[in-house]
């Protein structure tokens, strides 16, 4: 599967909230690959890329968090100057808007991954494929 899932969690912008959230994941033995927080005034959305999104999602819901499994795609980039630019240009030229994104470098230091949220995933996927980019499968992504 090319479409992967990250866990988006609604959280009040308040001391202790992230602590509680990460505790739930720790107790569920979920490993976090990447984390980013989109803030808006007094609340934010914590976005988690984890090794087992379904398990993380269920655990968070069980603990009362407002969690959502969000579809994302992961693009493999060269870890060198211009890598990210080329991805963005390919999407931008075809009018695909990136709602949110974050990137990280994989252990081998030669490749980087860009995780993107877009409105129309199939279209983005097609554009990227046509542009010659490799997409990471969900399994690959979770087991990084």
């Amino acid at each position, binding site marked *: 599967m090319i479409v992967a899932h990250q866990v*988006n969690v609604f959280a*009040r912008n308040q001391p202790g909230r992230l602590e509680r959230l990460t505790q739930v994941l720790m107790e569920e033995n979920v490993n976090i690959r990447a984390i980013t927080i989109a803030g808006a005034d007094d*609340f934010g959305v914590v976005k988690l890329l984890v090794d087992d999104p379904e398990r993380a999602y269920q655990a968070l819901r069980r603990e009362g968090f*407002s969690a959502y499994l969000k579809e994302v795609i992961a693009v493999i980039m060269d870890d060198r100057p211009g890598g990210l630019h080329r991805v963005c240009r390919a999407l931008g030229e075809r009018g695909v808007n990136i709602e949110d994104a974050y990137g990280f470098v994989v252990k081998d230091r030669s490749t980087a991954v860009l995780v993107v949220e877009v409105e129309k995933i199939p279209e983005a996927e097609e554009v990227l494929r046509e542009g010659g980019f490799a997409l990471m499968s969900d399994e690959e992504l979770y087991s990084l």
Partner: protein
Amino acid sequence: MPEGEFWNPEVELLSGEEIRSLQLRRLRAVLERCGNSPFYREWFREAGFDPARVSSLDDLRALPFMDKETLRGGDPRRFLTVPLEEVVRLHSSSGTTGQATVVFHTARDIDAWTELVARCMYMTGVRRSDVFQNMMGYGLFTGGLGFHYAAERIGALVIPAGSGNSKRQIQLMRDFGTTVIHVIPSYALYLLDVFRELGLDPRRDTSLRIAFIGAEPHTESLRRRLEEAYGIKAYNSYGLSEMSGPGVAFECPFQEGMHVGEDSFILEAIDPEPLEPAPAAEGGERARTLHREGMPLLRYRTHDLARVFPEPCRCGRAHRRISRIKGRTDDMFIVKGVNVFPMQVERVLLGILGVGSNYRIVLETVDNRDEMRVQVEVSGDLWHGEVKELSQLRRRIAQELRNEILVTPVVELVEPGSLPAGEGKAVRVVDMRDHARGE
């Protein structure tokens, strides 16, 4: 004219038992008259209530409660137990949102009400030698006319000053030697600044000795502050236009709670628990008027939160006392001068969020002004993981609430489970404003 300590010793010095028996007698007369009212005929029929069979005060409990909503439904004339031509006046509550509630009075109703307020004023020490400056609004509002007629009944010199025009108020006080005022507490506070501007000290430059403060909630400390600054005794009272107006409950010189005029009202506390600090406590006080002939009210629920002091008062009156009003059960609150019903808020939220969404309304004082915060839980089921979705949701809630209640609230999105569960006696409204906290 009474000379002693009591305006009407026969009524004021009744024992608890005598009060109860007077109440029952008057109640039966009221119930009989209710047969003339289309509303009450239907009300009794629906409840399977036979007014002729009432033999104790408790029998009335077979009737459902009425409240403001009951009064609002339809033509107010259907409550009348007399022909409309017997009615000589109407008063109406501030119906800022929703329909105003109307109360009709016959000449005898006005007379009984005047007598009641006169008794209250006399109890605090007002006499015919006093000069009474009534600084309340006259008109549909019951506070102005209620006190006006009562002060005349006592025989005091009444200055119908009305509200506003601060310098003239002070001028009148000084020109005519005003000894008693009736004033909104926040205005009394403001007037102190005007005194200062004029280089005057109310303690030294006026003859004031008594103030009746009311028509808005205030704290004990504000009362003491006014007493200190003006060199007076300030008395708290309680009334609502549905029960004629001022005079429902009034402080005696001991200022340890307000005596309910139990010859005119039957006091029924919903929840005898002390209601003190916990805004969570549900309770309140319900009463019914006893000798209003035009438009009597039966088991009228006020939704005001107060404690009942059943023990006798040092003043010798057995009429039970109630505490300062601690707030209202979550039915109606006043924010920025606007009446708001939580149902209105709930309806808006229901429309946007669907059933089962949990919310809470928090009222606070920020920079001496009312602020209304609406906290809404964002459940996982109504959210699709996007930040902008949440910002839009917040904007939309604020906008639709403003359209409905005419006040723009601060909307806070909170996590599921972070508000008290929305069932049963859940607290939907938390009033943390200065006046509600009391002291």
